[in-house]
């Protein structure tokens, strides 16, 4: 079992400004827990998470050593992660930045595990632009007309980032059109996508899609 991190230092006022771990967060964690052995087998050494998970680092801390990097555009999310680190006595590598831009050059084909729980809620286009510029809580959900505005930008970067055996885990909502995401990734970038977990949570029907390079689809 992966230990549950201590998040008691975060209060409802923090959650006014950062994304509170919710069903989507835990679904991704469950998927990763099921894959833990595989990740160990591919000697995952560098993990990059976009959109900070307040707690994921801690879950993994005890399973095997690797470098955990994370980025978020919301400075407050970054600060809360500082607190989480302190509370749980671990060293984190947090960067206040957008998507994978700060690591783009240096991590080319070096990321073994890429995680993204994106702002996936369908909203107006205007709302996305505002949310991305203001870098506040709205950036946690605002995703544009099909909820894919931000995710699509990242999809275009996956191929250049992942190591040959690397995996990319993406959280998606039914409205994001999961079959279409899988198709795009295959046709445009040569990645095989598979829904590894799905769950209904209230009104949301959530999916975890795992992508691997087409030629490396032997493990699972």
């Amino acid at each position, binding site marked *: 079992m992966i230990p549950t991190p201590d998040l008691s*230092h975060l*209060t409802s*006022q*923090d959650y006014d*400004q950062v994304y509170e771990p919710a069903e989507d967060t835990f679904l991704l964690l469950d998927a990763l827990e099921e894959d833990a052995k595989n990740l160990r087998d591919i*000697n995952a*050494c*560098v993990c990059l998470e976009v959109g900070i998970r307040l707690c994921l680092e801690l879950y993994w801390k005890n399973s095997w*050593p*690797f*470098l955990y*990097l994370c*980025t978020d*555009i919301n*400075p*407050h999310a*970054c*600060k*809360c*992660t*500082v*607190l989480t*680190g*302190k509370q749980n006595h*671990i*060293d*984190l*590598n*947090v*960067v*206040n*930045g*957008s998507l994978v*831009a*700060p*690591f*783009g*050059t*240096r*991590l080319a084909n*070096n990321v073994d595990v890429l995680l993204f729980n994106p702002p996936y809620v369908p909203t107006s286009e205007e709302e996305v632009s505002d949310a991305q*510029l203001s*870098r506040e809580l709205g950036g946690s959900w605002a995703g544009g007309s099909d909820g894919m505005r931000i995710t699509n930008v990242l999809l275009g970067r996956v191929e250049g980032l992942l190591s040959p055996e690397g995996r990319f885990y993406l959280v998606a909502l039914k409205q994001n059109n999961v079959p279409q995401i899988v198709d795009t990734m295959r046709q445009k970038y040569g990645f095989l996508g598979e829904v590894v977990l799905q769950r209904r949570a209230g009104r949301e029907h959530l999916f975890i899609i795992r992508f691997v390079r087409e030629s490396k689809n032997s493990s699972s």
Partner: protein
Amino acid sequence: MMDVEEERLCLFGIADCSLLPPTIMVRLITHNLLACHAKDCNANNFPLQFKDVKLEFREADFNPDFLKGFMPKIEWKALVDTARELGDTSLPLEQPEMLDDDFLKNLHHVLLEIHVEEGSMTCPNCNHVYPISNGIPNMLLAEHEIG
């Protein structure tokens, strides 16, 4: 310096993050992976130069296997130069072939135990300055700076 947001947190009795002993700091392992990504800046944009830094040293668990696995991903010259600038001369100019314990311990210290808490990082090419505050590097660009 406290912004309004933080002040509000204090009022609510939540610790102001900037007053806590910082836990996250830019370590050289992260620094070795960051490059400038400003618009049209795509050559000589690495490594970013530290300026006005405040350092702190914190012990981390020594893990030789991780270090060996990570070594091929390091830009060695950038790491050695940066460590020297920060006053640590323990690493050889060339990556050694024999990875003995002494070497790995030095590497461990440089990569994982030197923390830059405050300061900034400047792009050697376009001179864009990325500030570090509370140990968090701010790599955000304004809209017009994004390529």
